[in-house]
């Protein structure tokens, strides 16, 4: 795997991990109405350091001493992934707005923290879309250099 692929895997792992942590924390705080266990917090910290530590070592490791940081195909794949992520921002924002309207009605009230939660969730979902777009393109292959 080259650096771009490794970075995408790290991105995907980190984003999925963050979404799981936030989801469980939110459920514990607002659903079960209690603070998360100490064990869960240690597991979160351990997971964070594990993913970061492995990625810092693994991403830096090169296939060859002359391997470039990225080549033209990597740039093309990254460009397409950015486009996919940009489109997903709009789709997710629209979906979030429609969902809120359907859940609470046009004149409904929601707490301010829920907006922060929605923004964070959208951020991580966009990162997942970005990383997935990169990995899928490496699997499919791209036919058009220089477009």
């Amino acid at each position: 795997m080259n650096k771009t692929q490794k970075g995408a895997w790290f991105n995907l792992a980190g984003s999925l991990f963050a979404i799981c942590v936030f989801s469980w924390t939110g459920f514990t705080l607002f659903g079960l109405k209690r603070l998360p266990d100490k064990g869960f917090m240690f597991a979160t910290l351990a997971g964070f350091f594990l993913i970061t530590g492995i990625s810092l070592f693994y991403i830096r490791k090169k296939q060859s001493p002359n391997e470039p940081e990225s080549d033209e195909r990597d740039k093309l794949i990254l460009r397409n992934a950015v486009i996919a992520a940009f489109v997903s921002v709009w789709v997710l924002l629209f979906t979030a707005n429609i969902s809120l309207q359907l859940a609470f009605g046009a004149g409904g009230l929601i707490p301010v923290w829920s907006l922060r939660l929605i923004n964070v969730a959208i951020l991580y979902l966009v990162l997942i879309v970005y990383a997935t777009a990169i990995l899928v393109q490496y699997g499919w292959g791209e036919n058009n250099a220089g477009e």
Partner: protein
Amino acid sequence: MPENNLTNNIRRLRFEHNEMTQQELADKAQVTRQTIFAIESGKYAPSLPLAFRIAKAFGVGVEQVFQYEE
């Protein structure tokens, strides 16, 4: 997805040049091994500069490496 009419002899040329590996060719062409693999298997059409660098790595002309079929 547009049809890729570009074919290449990279695999054959690699074997003819002291069984050059994909990584060695990638180092000479200044790209990653994955890009060489994608070009060889017809999944990726290289840019003109890259096509010339690959041809230069084999010491042959671009037409001997890549062929365009109508």
